């Protein structure tokens, strides 16, 4: 289902949503190997959280900076070390507050206009589901080998 043209002002000419599966897999596996090398085996919980961050980071890098949600994810990841208490963000009145719950789920959703929010949601959802599929595939192939 390709869009005939974007309803919102969006410089991205790509009519389909989501990055290529190969790019996603490549980035994530590379990030996994870094986590494996740099996290001590004695802290599996810490490693689980690092893997989770690697998942969102590789998703965001694969989507590139043309998406508001991926920029928001990368900002969040890079500022993580500062551990600031995040004040609840007031929704901009020009953006309106339709679909409040959705705005809280999609990174960067708070300041978007409704139309952009819907487009970003579609791209974010597509990337998320591809990431989950990728991680499930790795778990499945790693668990079934040697049996």
């Amino acid at each position, binding site marked *: *289902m390709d*869009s005939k043209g974007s*309803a*919102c*002002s969006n410089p991205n000419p790509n009519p389909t*949503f989501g990055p290529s599966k190969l790019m996603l897999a490549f980035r994530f*596996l590379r990030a*996994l*190997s870094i*986590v*494996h090398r740099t996290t001590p*085996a004695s802290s*599996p*919980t810490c*490693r*689980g*959280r690092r*893997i*989770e961050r690697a*998942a*969102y980071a590789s998703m965001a890098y694969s989507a590139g900076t043309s998406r508001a949600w991926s920029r928001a994810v990368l900002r969040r990841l890079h500022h993580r070390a500062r551990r600031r208490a995040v004040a609840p963000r007031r929704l901009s009145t*020009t953006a309106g507050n339709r*679909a409040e*719950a*959705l705005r809280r*789920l*999609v990174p960067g959703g708070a300041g978007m*206009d*409704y*139309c952009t929010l*819907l*487009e970003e*949601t*579609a791209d*974010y*959802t*597509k990337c*998320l*589901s591809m*990431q*989950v599929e990728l*991680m*499930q595939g*790795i*778990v499945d192939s*790693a*668990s079934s*080998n*040697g049996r």
Partner: protein
Amino acid sequence: MPIEMSSRRSRITDEEINELISKLQSLLPESRRRSTSRASASKLLKETCSYIRSLHREVDDLSDRLSDLMSTMDSNSPQAEIIRSILRS
């Protein structure tokens, strides 16, 4: 934001919004799509929220499972060797 941009935005029609919302519906997995086949926009957005939440939980859970698998890599099982060879390349 320049005036032209905001007036262009205000000309976005309901039809275009509906198109975007049906795109969201097409991204839902089969089971969720079935339950929202003739749903209102607001129900579809609720379902999308629920779907995104479940995807977040899956990333969380799969990260833990991958972490567990990594600890098997510290042994000499055949699985460990295969995973090691994938990650090395």
